[in-house]
């Protein structure tokens, strides 16, 4: 196939990115954030949410995700894709860096090169998909990918923050970069480490006007103190989701509004599928079928959650396969019958064992500093022990758990656990990164903590990556979810709903970005 395939209309649809409908606002917004986010540059921010969102108030991307997770042209005014791999971008005119220097195609080329040579978890992988960058003029740049990549606009162009070449070309150690300067709608006016950020509107912003003159992002580490501050009127919005126990108290108040929506961060049960007993898919299916997920959601989340699907992808995602929407539910008697049919016999101690002697007795790691996951593990162990498995919950510090399940964040180093409570952040779900979760090649399946290996899953996820036709890609992702649902190397338990509180008298223009929440760039811009 050759020739030009896609053309975007170069009109900024502020509505599409969820910019506020308030005609004008201005003034000061007082927002509670959870921790220090460094100097708010692409190399120093800390968390995906809200750190990335704060950082991209200062830095712009070429595309911007709208509230429905569809990328909209942003610093790029237009895009033509040729031969599936050549992305020809026309940049917006009149865009300037905060210091007044014009933003040009050189900056785009420089940014991609910089992310390639200065390794950073979130951006280097996408930047490395680009084999060649050609600057065709001040506002023209072409990127040639190494291979077709259906998700490149979403995971690359809409994700990479653009760096000013004239500032960063002399920066060798980007993690020590002290000052943040981009083309974004806000500038960092003051940063007091561990206390607060003061952002002020960029008066010369090229796009929709900033909704506030000043944003104070105050660091309040403690959850209770955060919501006390919202109640007392000291804070206008909290980036932290409202804990289930407080929802009722807040929803009865006139001075506080809540917005609720799908949350993509997952809570999952991971298993080492090379461990005796857990290497049998039937055992894993029995485990999944015996867990009472609805009870977990009722007890732990007071109902504010969505049951996980066997295909991992959140039901609200456009990539979710409706055919893998629910787990088969097994009563303890059903579960025992299934195990016995698969050749397991119950020992004198009430625990099932295989003919080769492998007992279905497992250590189940849970993070000590995450009460929801720890309590989930306790409830799950009750369900499984009732069937005839011997599951022992062991609570360990979170970093220690990660080190055992994912030594040095490198799956090629193997794993040292049997069962563990885990979770993935929103982007894994939003980008339907099934290849990362399932692929047996450790360089591709970088999130495959189970040691799962299946040729068909490898083939499907490889093909989905390079298939650019949206329908064909979705079909491949659907099939990959069916593989996952059949083999269950991981069990998706639930997704906690995102519920966010704000004071409407201060500002009511918040929009909910699917899977994430109300704090995203569009919420801070006027329509």
């Amino acid at each position, binding site marked *: 196939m050759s020739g030009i395939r896609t053309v975007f209309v170069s009109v900024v649809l502020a509505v599409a990115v969820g910019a506020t409908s308030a005609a004008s606002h201005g003034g*000061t917004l007082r927002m509670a954030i959870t921790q220090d986010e460094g100097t708010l540059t692409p190399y120093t921010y800390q968390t995906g949410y809200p750190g990335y969102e704060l950082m991209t108030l200062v830095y712009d991307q070429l595309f911007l995700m709208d509230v429905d997770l569809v990328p909209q042209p942003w610093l790029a005014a237009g895009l033509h894709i040729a031969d599936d791999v050549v992305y020809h971008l026309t940049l917006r005119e009149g865009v300037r860096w905060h210091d007044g220097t014009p933003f040009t195609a050189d900056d785009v080329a420089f940014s991609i090169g910089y992310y390639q040579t200065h390794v950073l978890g979130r951006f280097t992988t996408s930047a490395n998909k680009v084999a060649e960058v050609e600057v065709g003029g001040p506002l023209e740049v072409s990127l040639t990918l190494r291979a077709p990549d259906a998700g490149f606009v979403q995971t690359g162009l809409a994700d990479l923050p653009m760096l000013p070449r004239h500032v960063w070309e002399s920066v060798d150690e980007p993690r020590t970069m002290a000052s943040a300067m981009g083309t974004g709608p806000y500038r960092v006016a003051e940063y007091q480490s561990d206390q607060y950020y003061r952002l002020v509107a960029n008066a010369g912003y090229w796009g929709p006007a900033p909704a506030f003159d000043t944003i104070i992002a105050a660091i309040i580490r403690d959850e209770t103190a955060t919501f006390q501050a919202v109640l007392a009127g000291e804070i206008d919005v909290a980036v932290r989701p409202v804990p289930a126990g407080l929802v009722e108290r807040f929803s009865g108040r006139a001075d506080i509004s809540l917005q609720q929506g799908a949350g993509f961060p997952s809570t999952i049960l991971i298993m080492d599928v090379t461990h005796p007993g857990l290497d049998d898919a039937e055992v894993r299916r029995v485990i999944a079928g015996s867990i009472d997920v609805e009870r977990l959601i009722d007890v732990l989340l007071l109902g504010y959650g969505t049951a996980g699907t066997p295909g991992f992808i959140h039901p609200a995602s456009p990539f979710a396969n409706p055919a893998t929407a629910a787990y088969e539910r097994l009563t303890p008697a059903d579960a025992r019958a299934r195990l016995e049919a698969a050749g397991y016999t119950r020992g004198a101690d009430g625990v099932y064992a295989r003919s080769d002697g492998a007992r279905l007795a497992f250590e189940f790691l849970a993070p000590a500093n995450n009460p929801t996951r720890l309590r989930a593990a306790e409830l799950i162990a009750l369900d499984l022990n009732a069937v005839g498995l011997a599951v022992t919950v062991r609570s360990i510090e979170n970093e220690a758990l990660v080190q055992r399940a994912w030594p040095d964040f490198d799956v090629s180093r193997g794993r040292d656990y049997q069962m563990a409570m885990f979770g993935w952040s929103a982007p894994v779900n939003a980008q339907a990164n099934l290849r990362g979760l399932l692929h047996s090649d450790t360089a591709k399946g970088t999130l495959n903590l189970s040691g799962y290996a299946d040729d068909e899953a490898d083939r499907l996820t490889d093909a989905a990556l390079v298939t650019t036709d949206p329908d064909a890609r979705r079909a491949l992702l659907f099939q990959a979810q069916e593989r996952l649902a059949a083999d269950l190397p991981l069990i998706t338990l639930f997704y906690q709903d995102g519920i966010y509180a704000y004071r409407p008298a201060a500002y009511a223009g918040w929009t909910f970005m699917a899977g994430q929440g109300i704090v995203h760039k569009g919420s801070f811009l006027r329509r």
Partner: protein
Amino acid sequence: MNWYLGRVGQYALVLLAALTLNFALPRAMPGSPLRFLAGEDVGMLAPAQVAEIRARYGLDQGLGVQYVTYLRNMATGQWGFSYQLGRPVIDTIRARLPWTLLLVGSSMLIATLFGIIAGAFAAWWRGRAFDTLSLTGSIVVDSLPTFWLGMLLIAVFAVELRWLPIYGAVTPWGPKSGWPYVVDVARHLVLPATTLTLATLSSTFLVMRYGMLDALGQDYIRTARAKGVPEGSVLLKHTVRNALLPVSTVVFLNLGFLVGGATVIETVFSYPGVGTLLYQAVLNRDYPVLQGAFFMLTVSVILANVLADAVYPLLDPRVRRAGT
């Protein structure tokens, strides 16, 4: 002279042992600082890129090599950059130390003065209403969880009455200089300092009270009273002065930890002190910050001991005579 040389030798040994522990303990914890060196989504990186990051920060070297580098850097003041914040370790500590000194110092001062006075009168009036009430009160307050006490104060004085702010050390949009700034800082200090004072009051109070009771039972008190020394003099000159000796030990011990901050209270009130910095550094395996902050803590504890060694003979003539 030999006694002083021996003392210096002891402190040098303690310093070296502490430095070694400061190096070894963070690394003995399972987990890795990679999450912060590679930024968010370290899982997206290929193994070769992870290896590149480990090499860049010297984490691929043997522990022996890292230890020698560490000792050299500590000695030359090259404390490095915080993995987590990307700022020089010295800057991150310097930014928080004044707040910690203000919070911990002010509560320590109040708690010590209040503990001494209340402890002295409780013992002086032993068995009377004041003694019973203050003893029970101090034990009750001491057994309350600090975070709960802090939350209670926030709920009453900040949320219901709205007299005082809930979080932080200053109002982000407030005054930056002059008296209004001082007032702003003081208003933010009241609740955390009160919580910390209540949480630490009982140790001074109890030590003082028992010191007083011990002194009151001594022969020299009976002698003084038999000589007809006025009660005020018996209390101040004969009893309190002697009872203060064990209290001074507690004070000097506390002084050493002045710079360590108060993690729980700093977290509850979002107070930007050294305690939360250390806590976050432990969670995030931020070795350079841990090393720097522990080094500072080690030196300050040693200095407090040196001070105690120097001052104790002045307070207690018996030590002076034994030492010479």
